Every structure is written in C-alpha cells, then in structure tokens.
C-alpha cells in the first residue's frame, strides 16, 4: 500500500475543502473520504486505489435516521448498514431496503459499511481488482480483459465495448426502486440528486461511475413517503445462499387496485453496470392484471436490451425469473 496523509475533519465544510484538492472524485482520486473502509481499504491493499490523502469523515454528524418533513425518511450518509436494516421505520415502511441490506456482505461488514459508502461500492470484476490485467475502469485506455475473459458474473445491461463491470450493491437496487434522492454538499453548496441520475453508464469512460465532483460529500439519502398500500420485495439469486454477490436480484414495489396493478417500481441488481431501473417493466405492469403472464411480459421487457458476453448468457433468463418470482412473492406474502 502506498503511504498517505491522514486527516479527520470535524465539519462538513472542512471535509469539502479537503476533498476539493483532488483532481477527480472518480477512479484514481488523490483524495479519498473513508467511512466504513470496507471498499476503499480493500482496494488500497490491492493497489487499485492509491490515494495520497485519506480524509476520515467518521466524526461528522451524519449518522442519524430521521423523518423527513412532509413524510419520508432521511438516512444519514454515515448510518451503518446494520442500523438501517434494523431500524423500525425502515422495516415497517421500506422493508425492501431492509431485506436488500441484510442480503449483502456479512454482519461484521454491515456494522462497518455506511449508507453513503455503499452508494459508492465498487465493482467486483476480477480484472478491475487485479492490477496485472488491463481494465478501462481502473486505467482508462488499457482495454477490457473481461469482455473476452471470465465474465460469468458480469453485466448484461448497460454495457459498452469498453466495460461490462457489474454494480455489486444490494442497497442501491432497493434505493432505486424506492426512488431515493441523494443529498450532496460540494464546493458550490448543497444539491439533491435523484438516484436515477446519480450513476453513469460506462460508455467510453467507465472510470467515471457517478456524477460526484471533487469535494462532494454525501450527506444523506432521502426516501419519499411510502406508497400507501404498496407491497415490496427484494429477491437475490446467487451461487450460495449467504455471503455472496448477486448473479441477479430484483427489488419490486407494487400497488394493486382490485385485480389490476396500479403502481409498479422495478429495479435489478447483479445484471447492470449500474443499479438498473426498468421503466419498460414498470410500463408493462401498469394497468395489467395480477398474474404470471403479466409478470412474465414485464420480465421480457426488462431484459429486452440485454447483451450477454461469452459466459453470462444464463443471466438473461435468470433475471427474468427473478423478476417474476419477486413480483409473485410481493403479491402473495403478507
């Protein structure tokens, strides 16, 4: 690991100022904020991240989970994944988020990992994590080793000719289905970013993963008021039943009106280069009947644009079945 300067600001303003010295907030940033450390320190040990300065933001007052004015919930950026998952309001009003969080990592990691850090969780693509291989995300212009390499776990939606890395988070899939917004403070003040606009597609710049700029500190994530009468579910399919990343996952929020679907939000994990909202599936569901045929039609729509690589073609059908199953469970479970 390369050495670095360590600082521990006590105010957000100080943290913004320290972060602003970096030339980028994306891959290869010279200044990195550390919260839980579970992604960053792992990648520093692999020399994938080599910051010159570490800014420890753990003493900033950003760990609260509190009601939002006008309904909804504000989750502080430093709220630990375990605290969010076990929060009574989250469990009652946003169970899909609790389920997603508890399906990820391990109890120890969930005690460390934060809401803001999880938003910025990096891909598990083995070529990104191994500096002996070419990777456009880690080192722009070097090529993608995954496209003709081991790509069984990688993305089938939102890929480009330069990158097929999967966004690995469970939390972010649930937050996408819940239409969360992200509060950020930067050098030009505060702003709200809908989660749908927060993540960038890889395109020709897979090293740029989010819209964050140098100095930007994530303050909180706000969930809109829960949709009255809606049911939700997070289903995660993986190679073993625990402690593994998703091959395909689905977060669904569904509201019925009699025998028709009145409201649907569908987000996918494990298959996209970013947490994958499927507007196509949502449109297919709206107004349709609550039955297996409707669910399957929506699943087909969601995967219409899938472009599998050499080893991950199975994910197309897996993701479809994941959507159908999650929808079925959301409508049949109490």
């Amino acid at each position, binding site marked *: 690991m390369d050495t670095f300067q360590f600082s521990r600001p006590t105010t957000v303003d100080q943290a913004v100022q320290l972060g602003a010295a970096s030339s980028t907030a994306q891959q290869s940033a010279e200044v990195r904020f550390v919260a839980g450390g*579970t992604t960053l320190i792992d990648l520093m040990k692999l020399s994938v991240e080599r910051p010159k300065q570490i800014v*420890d933001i753990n003493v900033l007052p950003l760990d609260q989970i509190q009601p939002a004015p006008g309904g909804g919930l504000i989750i502080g950026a430093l709220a630990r994944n375990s605290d969010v998952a076990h929060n009574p309001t989250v469990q009652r009003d946003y169970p899909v988020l609790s389920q997603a969080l508890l399906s990820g990592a391990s109890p120890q990691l969930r005690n460390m990992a934060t809401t803001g850090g999880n938003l910025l969780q990096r891909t598990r693509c083995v070529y990104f994590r191994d500096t002996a291989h070419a990777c456009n995300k880690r080192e722009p212009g070097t090529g993608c080793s995954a496209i003709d390499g081991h790509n069984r776990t990688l993305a089938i939606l939102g890929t480009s000719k330069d990158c097929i890395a999967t966004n690995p988070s469970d939390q972010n899939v649930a937050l996408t289905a819940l239409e969360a917004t992200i509060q950020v403070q930067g050098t030009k003040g505060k702003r709200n970013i809908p989660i749908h606009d927060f993540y960038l597609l890889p395109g020709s710049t897979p090293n740029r993963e989010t819209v964050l700029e140098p100095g930007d500190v994530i303050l909180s994530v706000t969930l809109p008021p829960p949709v009255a009468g809606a049911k939700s579910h997070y289903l995660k399919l993986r190679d073993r039943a625990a402690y593994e990343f998703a091959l395909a996952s689905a977060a669904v929020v569904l509201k019925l009106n009699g025998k028709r679907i009145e409201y649907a939000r569908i987000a996918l994990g494990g298959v996209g280069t970013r947490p994958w909202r499927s507007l196509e599936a949502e449109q297919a569901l709206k107004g349709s009947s609550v039955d297996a045929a409707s669910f399957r039609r929506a699943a087909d729509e969601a995967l219409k644009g899938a472009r599998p690589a050499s080893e991950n073609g199975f994910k197309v059908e897996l993701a479809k079945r994941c959507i159908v199953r999650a929808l079925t469970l959301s409508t049949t479970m109490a």
Partner: protein
Amino acid sequence: MAKNPVESQIASGAGEREKLAPETGQPLLGRVSRRSFLSHVGAAGIAATAPPIFASASPKAAPAVDAPPTDGVKDAVPITLRINGKEHNLTLDPRTTLLDCLRENLNMPGTKKGCDHGQCGACTVHVNGRRVNSCLSFALMHSMDEITTIEGIGQPDNLHPMQAAFVEHDGYQCGYCTSGQIMSAVALFKEPVGPTDEDVKQAMYGNICRCGAYSNIVAAVQSARKRA
C-alpha cells in the same frame, strides 16, 4: 552456502538469535517461540517459492509484514487507542490497519489475520460493542473508540462462557479462526438473532472455518446462549 534458500535464511535468522543468547545462556532452540520460528520460515518461504518473474516485475514488492513498528517512519501519527479498557499511546504509520496494530505494534496476537480483505472473519474484534473486521479499518480511525479483543473477553484461568462453550463442544480443529468465531459469537448476545440453529448459522456466516467445525461451533454458540 546452503543450496536451499529456506535453510540458509533460517540459519541466518538463527545466527542473529545466537548473538542474543549469551544474555540468558539458554540453548538456542529453547528460546525460539512458535511465533518467531513461523515468522522466519514464512519470510524465507516467500523468497524461496516466488517465481523469478516477480523479482523484476515489482520493485515495490509487499513486505512480509504490512505495518511494522513505526518509530521514525515518515508521516507517522501519534494516537491513543483504548483497548480492553487500557489506553495505549502509539505513533503509527497511517497505513497500519487496526488488525496489524494489535498484532504487530501491541503484541496482541490473539486476533488473527486470515484473508486480510474482510472475507474470512478471523480478525473480528468489537468496536464500541459491535463486531467488525479489524483488517478493513485503519487504526487511526479509532481514536475515540472502545476496542475489545479476544484478550479482553477472557483469560485461560477465567474463560468467558462462550470460550468455555467452545472448549466443551470442541468448536474448532486447528484453532486459527476460533478467536474471530468467539468474538462474533459473543456479539450475538446483543444482536437480533432468532433462537434456531439456522438463525445462528445466518448470524455467523461472516466467519469462515476451513476445518469445517461448523456443527460444533453452532452447538457451542447455542449452549452458551441457553445459559446466558
């Protein structure tokens, strides 16, 4: 010169020790602890088995120890850590993980280094009463925290009930993962964990046991929970 580099390096390591021997006059082998013997073999083993290509490919090859004691290291930072109720004043290389700090700087080797990437749970300690992977945290991040390690849970003559249960139920084979297993198991007393064996397995999946002592570990955890 010995042909086998392992032998030659052990010999040179022993040679250094021999210079110290007159202090006590004890026979050399009697003074080499299991830990110091293994650390010599470990360093030599790496040198002996690494293919030649690595020697030139990486001028900054990782040292055998991530964070040795850091007197005089550039950018070293003073810090006070509170561990098992006792304060320790240290000056640390900022790269020092909490795990390496415990093992290398504070000579508390009860906390184990397994994968060093947050995947195996051998390094589990409690920070402010909650179990975490000490390998994925810099020590400097913990100046205000109360840290508890396996050394603070119990001692050989005064075992924690969970330690006693692991002994009673044979909850280990080689023992390397055991301190992490026990630190996780002790944390379960404060976590929302259901009563069944399946609940315990779910709560303990962040601790890997390559020997596969899982059924005995579950039995130990359940027996300690029932007595608590």
